[in-house]
């Protein structure tokens, strides 16, 4: 029980040598450090967040009034396909693996990921896939017009993707870049799992890991078995398009419905791949700003694993309208509703964590609180959509768009913002401005609700998704105008956030090692952490090692179950 810390001689306080511009760039390109790669992932994702956001804004201008001519139909179709693909694969997947990359080794007291070079390889694969996808705008006949960006929606139902119906290279860009990114993501997921299972510091048993790490484990495991079916389906699509195969060719006996199944076997768990790390972020932020330990840690772990399991059996709830048998429909109603049980446990546990705490409304916490409300709504509209007969009405309408933006924007993106406000001081050594943060929060919140609350209604009034225009007599005009205005308010919020990131990096307040008085291992090292993370390999005895240090009279390990 000795207090032995072993500083690494000679490196601890050595000042970083100043690098020239070229050397600095070189150091980022060749890095295998999990923190630098994490930051690369995050910066890459934030860049594409702006790009996909701009696409969304263009679509909102087009839809703001009936029979508008702001975008051509081709361009509108390309934009919503690219918006969806970008947000899911280039923003969502990259940012969770970025944040995971940065935090997982720090949180489990490791010096790097299990496979640092694989880590760099995964990042550059994903990055190349994303750039390839965007090259489609200028590739092909791009220089003569708006290029050949994919325009078959992000779920790309066969046979619209067959050569006969999309003869250009649009769909090829989409399929190939997703295959490439798929392998990158697979590498990242394997790396996280190997890191967690093989690199934990002494005393960090599985049931002592921070919940964020747990959620990254569940997400990575889910990625392993869901990204790969997508890759398989994309390979089939490429075989169809390039080798004259017949997988989805109705004329040769192939079944377009098979593509739907394969896509949604990936597509539904994918939503959980994104939302589970968001839960993880909430699990870290909410306790720290309530000043209480998370309520029911084992239940939270069990619920996360439960959600992951159930999520692999629910895919066909995206297919209630394709004409499954009544028994098939009923099965997927049940499995979908079952997701509500572990999710309910999570929400109750979060409320119990807040209960009796001393809640501080700093910016990260504000985003997490909004997340709680919005996730509650998203879950409830999810229940509505799981009711198959009602889904026959709501499917592919703006109601569905509203629902999944409540989960992906209202829950996932809000948590990502919380994470950035929360861990930015760790990564840069400087605090983000709270004033800008609060402006960002309120603008984004108001814009979000104007946009997505209204979308529920316009969907119930019969507006289908993926349409580039609509007629005035449908009565959707006013609502769409509100949606568009809300979109622009969100955009202003995001721009403030981008400004905040840059401004605070240069002029922000010094953060110190532990600005939030938090409890997990990453806050024990300096901000930003040195390349080797910890001067000595940490050893832990409870879920909150820093709490134990700060409260030697009352440490966690005395009470934890």
């Amino acid at each position, binding site marked *: 029980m000795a207090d032995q810390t072993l500083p690494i001689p000679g490196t601890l306080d050595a000042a970083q040598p100043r690098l020239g511009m070229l050397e600095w760039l070189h150091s980022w390109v060749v890095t295998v450090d999990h923190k630098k790669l994490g930051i690369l992932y995050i910066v890459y994702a934030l860049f594409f967040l702006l790009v996909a956001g701009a696409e969304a804004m263009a679509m909102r201008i087009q839809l703001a009034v009936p029979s508008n001519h702001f975008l051509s*139909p*081709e361009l509108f*179709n390309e934009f919503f396909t690219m918006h969806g693909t970008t947000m899911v694969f280039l923003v969502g997947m990259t940012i969770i693996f970025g944040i995971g990359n940065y935090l997982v080794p720090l949180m489990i007291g490791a010096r790097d990921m299990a496979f640092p070079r694989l880590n760099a390889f995964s990042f550059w694969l994903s990055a190349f896939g994303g750039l390839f996808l965007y090259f489609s705008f200028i590739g092909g006949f791009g220089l003569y017009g708006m290029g050949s960006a994919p325009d078959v929606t992000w779920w790309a*139902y*066969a046979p*619209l993707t067959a050569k006969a*119906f999309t003869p250009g290279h649009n769909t090829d860009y989409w399929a190939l870049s997703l295959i490439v990114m798929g392998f990158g993501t697979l590498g990242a997921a394997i790396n996280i799992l190997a890191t967690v299972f093989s690199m934990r510091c002494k005393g960090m048993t599985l049931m002592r890991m921070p919940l964020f790490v747990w959620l990254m484990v569940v997400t990575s495991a889910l990625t392993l078995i869901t990204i790969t079916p997508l890759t398989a389906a994309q390979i089939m699509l490429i075989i169809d398009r390039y080798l004259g195969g017949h997988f989805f060719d109705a004329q040769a*006996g192939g079944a*377009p419905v098979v593509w739907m199944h394969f896509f949604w076997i990936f597509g539904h768990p994918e939503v959980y791949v994104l939302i589970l790390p968001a839960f993880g972020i909430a699990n870290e932020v909410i306790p720290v700003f*309530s000043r*209480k330990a998370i309520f029911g840690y084992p239940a939270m772990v069990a619920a996360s694993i439960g959600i992951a399991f159930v999520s692999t059996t629910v895919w066909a709830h995206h297919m209630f*309208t*394709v*004409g499954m048998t009544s028994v098939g*429909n*009923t099965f997927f*109603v049940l499995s979908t*509703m079952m997701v*509500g049980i572990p999710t*309910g*446990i999570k*929400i*109750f546990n979060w*409320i*119990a964590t*807040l209960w009796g*705490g001393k*809640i*501080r*409304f700093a910016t990260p916490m504000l985003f997490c609180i909004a997340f*709680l*409300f919005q996730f*509650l709504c998203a879950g409830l*509209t999810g229940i*509505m959509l799981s*009711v*198959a*007969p*009602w*889904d*026959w009405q709501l499917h*592919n309408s703006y109601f569905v768009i509203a629902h999944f933006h409540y989960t992906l924007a209202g829950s996932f993106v809000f948590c990502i913002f919380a994470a950035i406000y929360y861990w930015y001081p760790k990564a840069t050594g400087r605090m983000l401005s709270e004033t800008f943060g609060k402006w960002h929060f309120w603008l984004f919140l*108001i814009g979000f609700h104007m946009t997505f609350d209204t979308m529920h209604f*316009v969907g119930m*009034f*019969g507006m*289908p*998704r*993926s349409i*580039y*225009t609509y*007629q005035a007599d*449908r*009565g959707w005009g*006013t*609502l769409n105008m509100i949606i568009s205005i809300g979109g622009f308010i969100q955009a202003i919020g995001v721009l403030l956030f981008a400004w905040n990131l840059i401004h605070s990096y240069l002029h922000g307040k010094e953060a110190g090692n532990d600005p939030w008085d938090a409890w997990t291992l990453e806050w024990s090292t300096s901000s930003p952490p040195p390349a080797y993370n910890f001067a000595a390999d940490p050893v832990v005895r409870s879920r909150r090692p820093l709490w134990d240090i700060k*409260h030697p009279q009352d440490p*966690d390990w005395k*009470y*934890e179950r």
Partner: protein
Amino acid sequence: MRQRRALSSLRSWLTLIPWFGLSTTFALADGPRSTPTIWAPASTPAHEIYGISLFVLLITGTIFAVVGGLLAYALIKFRVRDAEDMKHEPAQIYGSVQVELAWTVIPVLIVVVLFLTTARIIFAIQDAPKPKSALDVTVVGHQFWWEFRYPKLGIVTANELHVPVSTKSNPEPTYLKLLSADVDHSFWVPQLGGKTDLIPNHPNQMWFDPDATGLYLGQCAQFCGIEHAKMLIRVYVDTPDQFQAWVENEQKPGVQDPSVAAGRHIFETEACVNCHTVRGTAARGTVGPDLTHLMNRATIAAGAAQNTPANLHAWIKDPNVFKPGALMPAMQLSDQQIDQLVAYLTTLH
């Protein structure tokens, strides 16, 4: 300052409630029938769905009120009040098996109730026995228009579906057989029921029994290509007499008016006949809509434009005016030829 912010967060949530009423008002400003809302059901399946929607809304609304209320209460009650309050950590509670078990049971019970209700409605709609008096219609989805075939009546038309009203005393439901000629589409007329997809190599079926006459709007709900947005559906629910009259007229071959022979000649010698049919003439193409009774339709180009001579002229000259990307080519005819052609088409009642 902090309290005020917490409270205004709550307030922004409370505004949700009037939101619904407000949105409805906005949407209905243009008149009741033109908005294809799911809240004005007009057939048995639509009514069933409407009923279960209200039930589910009630349950989810209650959950939202209770859980959201708890959350709001916790946030206000347990906020940190001042600097003094921040000095001490609150009591640490790690969990409680009893409490957690209790709140696992509640969602389980809700799921059971919702599931049983839903299952009943699924079977009621999907497995409803088909009555003898049912009208059969085969719907074929094309990029970007609808083909409606009435196999028993020998009628083929496009984009505007005519069905009889179905009353309690004289039930006459319509059964749609859904096929696709090219890519996936989805048939959705919200007031008449849920949507069903049209998928190549995967025949589907749906039914509705409209309980009030009138015009019901809908459109394709599965992205099917560049002009997916302009693949609109108009369903006319007729009284039995109106429907009978419509059927009788549709069954006749195309009108042959000698005064427009020039236009007819252009139609039959140009590429028009490769795609379009006018029954009783040499035009037997099946790629595009059947034009035998074109003038009985209110719109052209799957609802993209009103069916007026001027619009017909513009459409034939360059379909991209109404529907950029439509598969009909611009016919490269002189204005005079188009005028003659339109004159012919306008006789096709």
